[in-house]
Structure formats: structure tokens, C-alpha cells
């Protein structure tokens, strides 16, 4: 590497356009497009008895109205179950437009297309849909009772029963010196990107081709889905993710009904059509995550070492299961975290409710798993009167135990084998960073001010970078520009910068010469998508391999020109030179020109590659057999299995016993994602994740009433934190490179959010001495906990009271 940018905090290249208002987000496209609006179900569970569009027909500017009756062929079939699984025994998906029944408030029933959005909404509100209401199921407990069914033919509401075990847990529990059993809950939040979803479609009737822009995390698969559903040839469909205003998981789901209906309308009408989701639509018409009921039994010895763990969880998957059981699987398999659990059994029952679908939100089941495991550690510590850090330390997988096989099957169908890590190292750093031994002094100081202070910690291991693959294409032009493309998409993670750093480092070119394109099927049609902290691992490595291919070819051509061995060549600042021989050099851009033998000189540079300009060996064809014109290379990275990043967080809370307001006064993060491409970007990811972790612990929840109405479907009522709610975060790093990929990197995107709920629950419990078994928790709920004489107190509280009295 001659241009060493890998590992440097390079400022982001995408910012230049974004800070001056020249980003190009979905709703910035198609100024003259027709606008779509949707009539959505106001009921959580109902039969549709009639749709009367008469009143809408005289609205000036109305162009078209579509109901289920207008859907034909594959469009009239249910939406795909994207990730089938043998244990998903009763999958259900909706239709692009409701087919006689609605199963959650917000389900699309009618699409209206008009000259602009105002007019489309005018028409939509004049459409009268009559419903016959059905009994509503809200929450895991209502679902598992089976009193009412979301889908008539699934009376127990169970979509899947996901089950894994690593041994005879009953026997191991029976043989354990001690056991503990408890039940806890975690509630729903949602990704809530500042930009909602959106789709713009343009049909070219002359060449029968479709271009779709979608605010998606998976443009290649959206393309395939549109082609399949609209019965188009794949090559006639191109899908582009433009600048995307945040994703966090919700935009990995596809095809959303709107992603099919908007292109369908564009084709039928022969005009551009656009739909940009509004905030209320996003609350009730996209996806949420996190609600689970967890029943946990743990066996352990007198030293707090776990001997067996038995978890039975109920996971609320909402009305449908388009994304399969990925979230339950991730909870089940990531729950074990950094700990050696001799015998583990987990059952997650995924149940239907009449609410918005549940699909991955940053963390994607990991926060729930971490909450289960880490609160178990806290309870063991409490029972045995051990320091919470010490209990964890005694159960950690040791640094010399890698690769560590948990004998579980991960979300990608591959074994959960941890590749590398140093968990005792993380814990030691965390204790130092938050001054764990100093908490008692801080507690006393806070008490002197009338405040309750407590600390909590949580550790996690995060499977990152799952396959099946990503690809990269690197091409050097005669101008010296280096074009880089990968099919994976970006939603603010700085991929243009990180991938450019990788190419600049691998190829030895100035980063200013590198141009990166992501998520455009015209540029790279094979891809999986951005999820599971996989972009740097997957596309980063694929692009590195592609750049190495270009480098190899460039050195081969240059070696012929310079009459040197490729082994003696190096590339520095875009120039290939002979090591130790100043002056013997050729610019990479010239090699790019020479790599493509030409007949026609279309510009000055091209003259060098024409047939009478370059000396050639008459005994060989201009393009050597097996070679190809151009200085470019395409390569793929397909991992044997996921990498496993890890980390440890600590939260210190201060609680005001007058208002029960909970203030996070310190938040410490130790983070290990292997080799780091850009530490500035990684820290930014951690900051953002922590904010969402704090949000999910203290502020955000989806407040459904018993009728399945989302009571807080706006930013006024859903408490997404402002700056005032987010604590300062201190970060320390550890790097255990992954042995699985060429760059040694692990993913970083989701890490920050995972332990937030667990650590903050622990801190509140530590501060108040009351068992915290339902999260998130508001000041009002904490007040109810505190004034309830029956609410469980921790053993530590009793000891503290005994000592302090």
C-alpha cells in the first residue's frame, strides 16, 4: 500500500453535496411525476364489505384509482415470504392492496393517483370503505392466549416455533447447585429514519423499460421482485437507491406494497408516478421491532458460573411474516453473548398480532437477547452477593478459546462460531473507562444531593457480515479516474468514503481520483443488501479483491512497457514505478489506455492505444487469449460464515425521587469491530447506536391500545430523543482482527444500540433497589414501581439498607 488511507479518519466525501442541499433523496426526484396516495385501514382487524370510489371521481386532477380488484397475475397473489424457514410453519403475508381483510391499522386498501399529492389525498378521503370489524389481538400475551385469532386458520396465533438446544438442559438444570427463574418484557420501538420510504417509477413505453428509484436498503432484490411481480424481464428493470435518509432496517424489507404498486401505475398510465411516505404512514404502514416476553431459567454454581440456560420467549411478529423469523433467530442465537454456556436451550414462539409487522430494526433481535442474558447475569450477582462485573468475568469465553463454537445455527444458516475476540479485555477496559470501583463513591455523592444513582453494564457479541456475498467492480479510466461500484446500498454510513479509502490504499491512487457508486443496479446488478452490519465486511472486502485484481493487471501491463518484473513494481500516487529506479515509471492512467487496444483515436490519450501507435508483437493477437480489454476487475467476497464483533457498555443513571425522572449521567462504550477502515465513521456509528439504545430504554415505545390503534403515531407523541436526552458517550477501542476476511474487519453498524436497554435497566435497578423487568421504563412507570409495596426488591437493596441503617 502506497497511499495509506485504510484506518485513517478521512473526512466524508458524500458531505460535500449534503451540506449545501444538493443531496438527491427520493422525493427530490421527478418534479413532474404524478403522485400516489393511499387509503389505509382505520381498523386493526376487519373484513372489507364495500369500497365506494364514487365520491372521488369528480375531483379535478384525479388520474386513477386502484383496488385489489385491479390487480392481476402475480400482483393479485400474496406478497412474498422473503426468508422462508422450516420452523416458520404458518407464514402469512398481505397483498399489495387488501384482499377482503385487513390485519392492522395502516394496511393499504386503495391507491389513488393524481396530478399532485394534495389532490391525491383529496380523492383518497372521499373514498368510502365499509368494514365489518373483527376481534383484535394486541400484545404477546393476548396472542399466546389464543382467545382470538389474527388469521382465522391459525387459531393459536403461532407463526413459528424456533427451537435450538445444545444439550440436555433439563438434566443440567437438575444437576445445578442453584437455579433462578423469572419473566421479563421488552416493548416495541421502530427504526424511524428521518426520511420515510418512497418510490418513483418511470416507464419508457418506446423501449419497454422501467426505471425505479426507491428509498431502499436492497435495490437489486427490489429489482428482482418488481420484475417477478409485474412480469417483466429482469433486464428491462433498473432500480436505484438514491441518497437515502436513514434506514436502520426498515428499508431492507421489500417489496413493500408501494414498491410494486407505483411501478404498476407508471406502466399502466405511461407516466412518471411517485409516492413519498409521510410520517403517519411510516408509523402505521412500515415496520416496528422488539416486543418479547422472555421466560428464563438459569442454573449456576455457588461461584456464579452458569451451568445451564433455558429460555422460552414469545416474540410479537405483528400481522404478517414477510421477513421470516430472522429476528427470533437472532435473539435466540445472539443471546449467549460473550459467555460460555455449557448447556443452552431456546424456544422462541413467533406470534401474530393485529399490529404493524415486526422486521429488523438496528440490532434486529440482539437487544432482546442481550437484555435476557445480561439481566440474568445481574440476577445471579444479586443472589450471590457478587459484583456484577465479577459474575460476568467468571463466565466469559477466554481469549485463547477462539474459534469458539456455540453449536447453534445463525440467521444465515451457518454455525455460530466466534472468529476472534478478547472479552475479558473488553470488560477490563470498561471497568476502567467508567471507573466501576468508583460507583459507590458517586452513589454517596449523589445521595448527598438527594438523588439516587446507580450503574449497570452489559456485554454483547454481534454476528456481523453474514453472506451470501457482495461484489465489487473497480475500473481505471484513461483520465486516471477510478470508478468503483458495489450493489449494496447506503443510508448514511459513509460507504463512498470507506470504500474509496480501501481502493486508494489497495491501488495506490489519490482518493480524489476514486468515485464510488452504491445501490445502482445499472452499475452492479449482483448484491444482497445493507443489513446486519455487513457493508464494510462484505462490499469492503469484495472491493478490495477487485482492486487487487486491477493492480495485478496494471502491473503486468506496466512490466511489459517498463521491461521489468511485476514483482519489482509499485504504485504510488497513481504512478507505477520500478522500485529503486527513479524515472522508470508509467502513470496508471496510461496503463489504462494501453489496456484497451484501439482502432479509433477519439481523444489525445486514446492515440497511444491505436494500432499504428503502439509497438506490438505480431505473433500475438492484440488482446491476449484469456485477457480482456480495459483496466478493470470484478470480484466477489463470500464468507464461510459471519464475523463476530463485540463490546461492553456501562450506564450510570441519576434518578430524582421527586419526579422519578431518569437521567443517564455517564455512558461508556468499549467496542471491538476488528480492523477499522475509518475510525471517525465507526465512532459516528457508535454514537448513533447508543442514542437509539437510550431511546429504546427510556423514551420510545409503540403505544397500542386494546383496539389496535397506535396512540402515538407522530413525532409529537412518540418520544424520539432530541439532543437534550442523549448523554455524552466515552468510547474506548479494542481491535481483534477477523481471521475470516482479507481486510480483517467486522461490522460496526448496529453495535451501539444492542446493550442499551440491558445496561440502563441494570443501572435503574441498582439505583432504586427495585427489580426492573419491563423495559422501556418511563418516570410514571418507575413511580408506580416505587410506590408499590409488593414490587420485588433486589437482595442488594436489602443488604445496602441493612448495612446503611
Amino acid at each position, binding site marked *: 500500500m502506497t497511499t495509506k488511507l485504510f484506518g485513517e479518519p478521512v*473526512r*466524508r466525501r*458524500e*458531505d*460535500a453535496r*449534503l*451540506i*449545501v*442541499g*444538493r*443531496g*438527491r*433523496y427520493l*422525493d*427530490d426526484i421527478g*418534479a413532474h411525476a404524478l403522485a400516489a396516495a393511499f387509503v389505509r385501514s382505520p381498523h386493526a382487524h376487519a373484513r372489507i364489505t364495500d369500497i365506494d370510489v364514487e365520491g372521488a371521481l369528480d*375531483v*379535478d*386532477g384525479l388520474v386513477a384509482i386502484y383496488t385489489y380488484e385491479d390487480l392481476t397475475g402475480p400482483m393479485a397473489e400474496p406478497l412474498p415470504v422473503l426468508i422462508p424457514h422450516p420452523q416458520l410453519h404458518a407464514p402469512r403475508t398481505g397483498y399489495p392492496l387488501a384482499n377482503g381483510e385487513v390485519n392492522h391499522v395502516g394496511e393499504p386498501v386503495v391507491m389513488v393517483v393524481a396530478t*399532485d399529492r*394534495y*389532490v391525491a389525498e*383529496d380523492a383518497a378521503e372521499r373514498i368510502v370503505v365499509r368494514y365489518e370489524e373483527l376481534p383484535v389481538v394486541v400484545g404477546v400475551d393476548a396472542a399466546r392466549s389464543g382467545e382470538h385469532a389474527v388469521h382465522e386458520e391459525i387459531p393459536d396465533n403461532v407463526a413459528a416455533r424456533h427451537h435450538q438446544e445444545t444439550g440436555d438442559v433439563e438434566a443440567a438444570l437438575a444437576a445445578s447447585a442453584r437455579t433462578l427463574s423469572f419473566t421479563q418484557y421488552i416493548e416495541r420501538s421502530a*427504526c*424511524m*429514519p*428521518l*426520511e420515510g420510504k418512497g418510490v418513483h417509477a418511470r416507464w419508457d413505453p418506446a423501449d419497454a423499460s422501467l426505471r425505479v428509484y426507491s428509498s431502499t436498503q436492497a435495490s437489486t432484490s427490489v429489482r428482482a421482485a418488481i420484475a417477478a411481480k409485474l412480469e417483466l424481464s429482469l433486464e428491462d428493470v433498473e432500480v436505484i437507491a438514491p*441518497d*437515502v*435518509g*436513514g*434506514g*436502520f432496517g426498515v428499508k431492507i424489507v421489500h417489496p413493500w406494497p408501494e414498491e410494486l404498486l407505483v411501478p404498476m401505475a407508471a406502466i399502466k398510465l405511461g407516466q412518471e408516478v411517485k409516492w413519498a411516505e409521510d*410520517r403517519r404512514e411510516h408509523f402505521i404502514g412500515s415496520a416496528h421491532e422488539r416486543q418479547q416476553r422472555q421466560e428464563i431459567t438459569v442454573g449456576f454454581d455457588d461461584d456464579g458460573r452458569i451451568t445451564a440456560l433455558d429460555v422460552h420467549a414469545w416474540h410479537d411478529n405483528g400481522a404478517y411474516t414477510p421477513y421470516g423469523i430472522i429476528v427470533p433467530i437472532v435473539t435466540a442465537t445472539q443471546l449467549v453473548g460473550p459467555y460460555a454456556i455449557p448447556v443452552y436451550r431456546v424456544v422462541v414462539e413467533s406470534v401474530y398480532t393485529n399490529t404493524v409487522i415486526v422486521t429488523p430494526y438496528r440490532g434486529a433481535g440482539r437487544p432482546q437477547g442481550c437484555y435476557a442474558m445480561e439481566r440474568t447475569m445481574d440476577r445471579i450477582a444479586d443472589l450471590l452477593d457478587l459484583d456484577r462485573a465479577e459474575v460476568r468475568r467468571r463466565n466469559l469465553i477466554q481469549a485463547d478459546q477462539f474459534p469458539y463454537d456455540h453449536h447453534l445455527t445463525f440467521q444465515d444458516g451457518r454455525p455460530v462460531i466466534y472468529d476472534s475476540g478478547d472479552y475479558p479485555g473488553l470488560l477490563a477496559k470498561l471497568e476502567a473507562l467508567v471507573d466501576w470501583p468508583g460507583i459507590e463513591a458517586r452513589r454517596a455523592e449523589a445521595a448527598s444531593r438527594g438523588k439516587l444513582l446507580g450503574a449497570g453494564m452489559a456485554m454483547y457479541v454481534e454476528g456481523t457480515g453474514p453472506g451470501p456475498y457482495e461484489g465489487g467492480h473497480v475500473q481505471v479510466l484513461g483520465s486516471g479516474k477510478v470508478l468503483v461500484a458495489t450493489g449494496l446500498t447506503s*443510508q*448514511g*454510513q*459513509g460507504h463512498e468514503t470507506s470504500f474509496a479509502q480501501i481502493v486508494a490504499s489497495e491501488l495506490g491512487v489519490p482518493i480524489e481520483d476514486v468515485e464510488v457508486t452504491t445501490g445502482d443496479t445499472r452499475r452492479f446488478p449482483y448484491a444482497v443488501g445493507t443489513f446486519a452490519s455487513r457493508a464494510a465486511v462484505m462490499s469492503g472486502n469484495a472491493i478490495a479483491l477487485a482492486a487487487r485484481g486491477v493492480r495485478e493487471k496494471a502491473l503486468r501491463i506496466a512490466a511489459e512497457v517498463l521491461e521489468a518484473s511485476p514483482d519489482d513494481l509499485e504504485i504510488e500516487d497513481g504512478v507505477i514505478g520500478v522500485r529503486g529506479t527513479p524515472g522508470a515509471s508509467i502513470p496508471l492512467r496510461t496503463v489504462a489506455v494501453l489496456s484497451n487496444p484501439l482502432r479509433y483515436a477519439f481523444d489525445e490519450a486514446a492515440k497511444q492505444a491505436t494500432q499504428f501507435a503502439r509497438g506490438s508483437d505480431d505473433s500475438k493477437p492484440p488482446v491476449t487469449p484469456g485477457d480482456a480489454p480495459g483496466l478493470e476487475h470484478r470480484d466477489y467476497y463470500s464468507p464461510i460464515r459471519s464475523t463476530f464483533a463485540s463490546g461492553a457498555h456501562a450506564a450510570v443513571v441519576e434518578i430524582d425521587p421527586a419526579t422519578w425522572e431518569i437521567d443517564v449521567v455517564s455512558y461508556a462504550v468499549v467496542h471491538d469491530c476488528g480492523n477499522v477502515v475509518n475510525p*471517525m*465513521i465507526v*465512532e*459516528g456509528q457508535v*454514537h*448513533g*447506536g*447508543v*442514542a*437509539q439504545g437510550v431511546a429504546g430504554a427510556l423514551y420510545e415505545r409503540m403505544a397500542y391500545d386494546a383496539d389496535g390503534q397506535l396512540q402515538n403515531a*407522530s*413525532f*409529537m407523541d412518540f418520544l*424520539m430523543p*432530541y*439532543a*437534550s436526552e*442523549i448523554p*455524552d*458517550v466515552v468510547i474506548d477501542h479494542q481491535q481483534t482482527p477477523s481471521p475470516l476476511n482479507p481486510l480483517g474487519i467486522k461490522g460496526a453498524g448496529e453495535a*451501539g444500540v444492542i446493550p442499551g436497554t440491558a445496561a440502563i435497566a441494570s443501572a435503574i435497578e441498582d439505583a432504586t433497589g427495585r427489580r426492573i423487568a419491563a423495559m422501556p421504563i418511563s418516570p410514571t412507570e418507575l413511580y408506580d414501581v416505587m410506590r408499590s409495596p409488593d414490587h420485588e426488591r433486589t437482595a442488594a437493596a436489602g443488604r445496602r439498607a441493612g448495612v446503611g441503617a
Partner: protein
Amino acid sequence: MTSVDTERSITVTVNGVPREATLPVRRLLSDALRHDLGLTGTHVGCEHGVCGACTVLVDGQPMRSCLVLAVQVDGASVTTVEGLARDDHQGGQVLHPVQETFRECHALQCGFCTPGFLVTIAAGLEARDKAAEITEEEVDEIVGGNLCRCTGYANIKKAVRHAAAAMRPTGADHTGHFGGGDGAW
């Protein structure tokens, strides 16, 4: 639904340029800027005035353009994110200090909320005593009304501190990385 009765012609100075438009009276300022005038830098995140992504300056005051009708700003001067930079009188532009510090401090990720933050912060920094060192309370006050889902706000607050330092008049005692501001913003 649109007719002579429900439309008005308005004249608004947008980013220093007089613009005329004939619009339905119900058109939101955010939609008028984005869809009628083609200034798509202003973003719409919630349409109910909470997130602040659509913030623009109306006669120098930050306003949520999703809560203002376009006809209400007839005769006014509007500044959007596209108008924050100033001409360098050599055919190029000089970014506002807070635009510079947002990039320098990694204060944006997806960039969707960024225009609203930039406009709000620019107004906030303009309204304060530029010679005084900015306090944490001031920083919190300036950024406290805008939502960001990506950054966790830490780097946004850092960018505000650095921009304030850059905007201190030359000669003032400061230690900010972006010193040397002429206070002319």
C-alpha cells in the same frame, strides 16, 4: 380542486433572488420551495413541525416551513440551505462556517435532517454575541429543537462549538480549531 379562487400569486425573495409563483393557497411553504421552486435541499421529515428538517429562515428567523403556508411569506425574504453559502466574487462560493464544521466534525450521516440543523444553527450563531465564547447551554439551546436519528447529536454539538469559534471576530481570544473568522456571517 384548484381554481382562480383558491390560488394567489406571490413574490418572495429566496436566497437573495426575487421569485414569483402562482400557487394554491393551501400549498405549504415546504412544498412550494421543493416542488414549485425546485429547491429540494429543504427536507420534510414529519409535516407537523416537530423534527425541524424543513427549517428555513423567513426574514432571518428560523421557521418550520411545513407549518407555514407559502402565501404567508408573500413579500418576505426566505433563506434555505442552498442560500447559506455566500459568493466569493470569483465565480465560486464560500461555505458558511457551520457547513464547514459539519463536515469537519462528522456531524451528519444520512444528511436528511442536516439542512434543517444548518439553517437553525446559522441563525442561532448569528443571533448571539459572536465575540463571546459559546457555552454548553447555548449549544444545547441552538440544537435542542431538531431531530437527528443517525448521529446521537454529539458531533452536531461539536460542530456548533467549532463554528462559533470560527465566527468570533479576528482578535478575540479563542482556541477553536476554525479560528480566524471575520465575524461577517
